[in-house]
């Protein structure tokens, strides 16, 4: 079984679906000959040809809009937006069309596309290359938002997203593209969407997180373990729609909830998790819910970006404070 990185999990899933399903077309800026600026599509054009792995003109609205058109006519486009910071011209197509097509045609047309984009901070990138704006897509009815946090889930969740008959925004945490390797078999087995993944079982507090922050959160949980504090860590994985059953079950057990995300606090996906746990599980809570998030500032350029990202210490302190409440 090959030991691969998260980004290689993406490549492996794309190759698998290109091989298996003629309807799948990968498209975007620099995805062809260059193999993507992060190498996510490396070798795919050589293997499948320029019509299946297509370099497009530089226009994100066009990339999303043509994908809606292709998807509505029975193809399975997997467009790439080079960085999340350039995804905003595509937002119009996603909110006005991709998420609505099935509903407004009463199921006559559907939009099975996967809009992929690397996102998040921590790689010393230039301006507009480090933001986390997943909440914007989570706010779009009809659009799924999926974020893998490991090579295994990158492979399995991307397969599931491509096979999903609904539009998916698949956001790849680029800070951990090459952070860790896992053995992943290219067996074409998808992982389920719309469910959380429990990364670590625990009894004292539940920490909900996703993407690159799973790493800091797991570190904090391991440190707390040394002090006799047992944390359950849940990877949201599908940011929208959220699997609240798993979260509520965990909170019922631990009575405490901490949410960790890199995106700004205000109207972040953490707010949705907190609100629903307050609505449906408030009597299980022994202490107020805490959020450890990016700040409500513009994502700073890289000299300060590590100060912006939630640190292991901030996460661990929040857990301890919650237990002291």
């Amino acid at each position, binding site marked *: 079984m090959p030991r691969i990185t998260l980004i290689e999990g993406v490549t492996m899933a794309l190759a698998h679906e290109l091989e298996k399903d003629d309807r799948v077309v990968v498209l975007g*800026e*620099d995805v*062809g*000959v*260059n*193999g993507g*600026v992060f190498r996510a599509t490396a070798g795919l054009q050589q293997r499948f040809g320029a019509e299946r792995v297509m*370099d*497009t*003109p*530089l*226009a*994100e*609205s*066009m990339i999303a809009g043509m994908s809606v058109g292709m998807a509505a006519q029975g193809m399975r486009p997997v467009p790439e937006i080079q960085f999340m*910071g*350039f995804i*905003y*011209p595509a937002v119009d197509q996603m909110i006005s069309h991709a998420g609505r097509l099935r509903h407004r045609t009463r199921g006559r047309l559907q939009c099975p596309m996967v809009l992929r984009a690397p996102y998040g*901070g*921590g790689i*010393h*990138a*230039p*301006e*507009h*290359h480090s933001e986390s704006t997943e909440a914007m897509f989570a706010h779009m009815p009809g659009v799924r938002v999926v974020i893998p946090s490991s090579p295994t889930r990158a492979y399995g969740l991307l397969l599931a997203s491509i096979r999903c008959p609904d539009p998916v925004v698949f956001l790849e945490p680029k*800070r951990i593209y090459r952070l860790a390797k896992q053995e992943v078999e290219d067996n074409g087995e998808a992982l389920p969407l719309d469910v959380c993944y429990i990364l670590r079982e625990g009894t004292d507090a539940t920490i909900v997180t996703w993407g690159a922050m799973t*790493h*800091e959160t797991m570190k904090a949980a391991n440190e707390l373990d040394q002090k006799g504090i047992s944390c359950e860590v849940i990877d949201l994985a599908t940011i929208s729609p959220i699997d609240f059953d798993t979260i509520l079950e965990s909170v019922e057990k631990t009575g405490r909830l901490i949410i960790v995300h890199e995106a700004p*606090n*205000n109207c972040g996906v953490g707010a949705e998790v907190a609100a629903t746990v307050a609505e449906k599980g408030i009597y299980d809570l022994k202490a107020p819910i805490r959020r450890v998030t990016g*700040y*409500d*500032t*513009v994502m*700073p*350029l*890289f*000299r*300060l*970006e*590590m*100060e*912006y*990202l*939630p*640190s*292991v*210490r*901030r996460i661990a302190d929040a857990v301890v404070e919650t237990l002291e409440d």
Partner: protein
Amino acid sequence: MKKTVAEYRIEHLQVLDPQGELVSDLPDFARDPEQLLSMYRLMTLTRTFDTKAINLQRTGKLGTYASSLGHEAAHVGIGSAMRDEDIFAPMYREYGAQLWRGVKMSEVLLYWGGDERGNDFSGPRHDFPWCVPIATQCLHAAGAAMACKLRGEKRCAVTVIGDGGTSEGAFYEALNLAGAQRLPMMFVVVNNKWAISVPLHLQTAAETLAQKGIAAGIRCVQVDGNDVLAVRAASEEALARARAGEGATLMEAVTYRLSDHTTADDATRYRPKEEVEEAWEFEPLLRIRKYLQSQGMWDEQREEDLLRECANKVDAAVEEYLNTARMPVSAMFDHMYDEMPESLQEQREIAIRYEGSGGGH
């Protein structure tokens, strides 16, 4: 019956050919030796700076950097045609134009070194900062030109975009507005043939990028973008027309990206070596230097002195950049709003409490 209702043509301007021979009338500004020498000196400084910036990135002292190698004539030509009161809305590699306008090299380094203070530059304070989201700056330039027009000011806006950027909607929207409103502005398409790895023929089926302005009803010209005299002459004409109320111009400057897209890119993956080697024969410094030599205005000694002077200036800028300490964590919260909301003040305190706790890994 069928008849032709409209016909168009695109003119190409070259003043100096690649050998430095004069092939058009000498523009007025080029009769002043001081002007010619200033332009050549700044082109050389820009290139010296560029080489140093790439080295800084390679040695971990700078973030990702977008090189301007090969674009010196286009950028200095634009900058030298503008007046201080004009408004510049660049993309992200127009250092030649910006240095001409008074931006400091240390400020360019700060920006690519991950520090917002680079955007607070000392060039014209009304100029726009670098603009990474492709083509969005074209609309800002159109808006700036609209402001000038509404206030009856004799000022122009100038924006620069690459060949790849001409595929974006924002580019066409700005062109259209400039035409419909006769805006006092100039669009410059610096066509360097490559949008990262995507060659021009995958970007468009049009013969020229200059003609992209035809449908917007604005004046369109193409210039040899490796010829600083042609770029400046065409820019001066465009800006004079704009100031006279004759509307906008789209100028395509045809050049070549001699570098990788940025230091994060490796062009050998997708671009034939021979193409780059050939492009070096047309590079912009060569022909203006040859012209200056032929006019008795330049020689080897002066070249040697200039290179030393440029190296010293760049070294001083690098030192200033490297000696600029990181802003405190509280700077993240400054300038977010005119007045800081209470919720942000609370977050600011948290950030200060956790300063240096590592973040990330």
